[in-house]
Each structure stands twice: as C-alpha cells, then as structure tokens.
C-alpha cells in the first residue's frame, strides 16, 4: 500500500514536472508568474552598472555618502548623497543613482537633477535585504561618473519600541 502511494506520488511529480518544463520551453508562462521567477535571481551590481553606464570608467571622489553603520531596521535605511560638483547652467550633476548591492535588484533610485536645484544633495530611505554595500553613483551633464560606497549592517531585531 505504502509503496503504491509513493509510486503514484512520484508519478505525479514527474508528470507535472514534465508539464512545467513544456510550458517553460514554449515560453507560455502566464504573465503573473514572471516577476516571481525574475525575483529569485540576484542581479550582480557589476551587471547593473554595466547596463546603465556601459564600459565607462567610474571614478571615486566628489561623492559623500551618509548611511548608518548598523541599520535599526533594514526596511527603512536612511541614505543621503551629496556631491561637491558644480550646479551651474552648463555643468551640473545630472543624475544621482542609489544602489543596494545585496538586493535581488540592486537598483533603488535614480534622481535626475537640473541646475535649478542649486545643490547636488538628495536624501531618501531604502529597503535592504541583507548586510551589504550601499553605492551612490553621480553622473554629470558632461558625462563623467563618480561613485562612493559604504557597508550597512542589517539586523533583524526582536522587540523594538
């Protein structure tokens, strides 16, 4: 009796497995399942940067990154990015990118600025899946790239206030 159940269970798994593979190969995956599949793959920060900036060299300097050493709550980590680069009409910080390298998709936000902002500084709060680097990349209107990164430790607390 037991054997029978085992066999039939195995048979079932085999059958459904085959069906799933068939669906996958046909590319007929229902739309609502797609983000789930994508979410299980970790996108490497290098790939994320390459996709955005190609092979352009990203230099260090001109970017100040203010993050906590230990996040009180990984779901709400405050990040401040400041750059001392000019914000003049013809030469300004065009974009500030924020990445959290441990997230499945490291991209967090892109903030597009203009000279009307007067100052290249932004602050926001981000979700971090685990302890990892937070990276900020600054892109100027002339196409130069600068970056800075800092590690943030993420713990899961027990009680909280």
């Amino acid at each position, binding site marked *: 009796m037991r054997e029978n159940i085992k066999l039939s269970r195995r048979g079932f798994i085999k059958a459904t497995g085959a069906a799933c593979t068939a669906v996958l190969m046909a590319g007929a995956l229902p739309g609502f399942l797609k*983000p789930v599949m994508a979410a299980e793959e970790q996108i490497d920060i290098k790939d994320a940067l390459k996709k955005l900036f190609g092979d352009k060299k990203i230099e260090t300097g001109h970017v100040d990154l203010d993050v906590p050493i230990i996040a009180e709550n990984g779901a709400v980590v405050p990040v401040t990015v400041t750059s001392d680069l000019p914000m003049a009409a013809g030469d300004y910080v065009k974009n500030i990118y924020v990445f959290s390298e441990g997230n499945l998709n490291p991209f*967090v936000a*892109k903030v*597009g600025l203009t000279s*009307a902002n007067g100052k290249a*500084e932004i602050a926001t*709060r981000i979700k971090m899946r685990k302890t990892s680097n937070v990276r900020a990349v600054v892109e100027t209107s002339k196409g130069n790239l600068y970056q800075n990164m800092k590690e943030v430790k993420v713990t899961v607390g027990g009680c909280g206030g």
Partner: protein
Amino acid sequence: MAEIGKIMIKVPGAIKKGDVIPVKAMVVHPMETGQRKDSKTQNLIPEHYINDVKVYYGSDMVTSMEWGIAVSTNPFITFYLKADKAAPLKMVFKDNKGASFEQTVQVNPQ
C-alpha cells in the same frame, strides 16, 4: 484616514530670493516589492510601487526621478531647490498600476 497617495511637502517658512532651500516630501504608499507573501493566503502580494516622480517649479520641470521597489514604504525624499522666483512647486507621483498623485505648495521668496 491616511490613505494611499496622500502627500506632505515641507519647505522652509521664511525664504530669501536666491536661497537654496531643502524640499522634504513624504507620500503614503505601500511600495510592495512583489517578493512578500500574504500571511493569510500564502500568495505573493503583487508589485505595487511608485516608479516615476516629477517636480515642477512654475512651468519648468526641475527634478525627475525613477524609483525601484527598494524605496521604503511611505517614501521620503529630500532634494534642494534654488528659490529664485515666486511660483508653485508641484510634485507628481505615478505608480506601476497607473495611479497618479500630486500636491502643490507655494514657494514665496521675499
């Protein structure tokens, strides 16, 4: 009650013309990642997040943002603005389900 899409924009009270002022904005939004399970049904909660933010000062668009799922729930953003004219500051938030929320505050430098 504090429902989705409510926006709070804070600018300093007394501003002189030409000052670079901080603009702090908060918006009520769940910012669902699509990776979280409903504790009752065990189904994944679909992605629902603000992905596009635009800021207008008078008729000019001064700042535009693209957000991913990793911006925290009830997003908060600070940016700066050179207050060189008396004009409305409008922020427009759009989410991936097509909803749009906006709020305007007046910037009145002396």
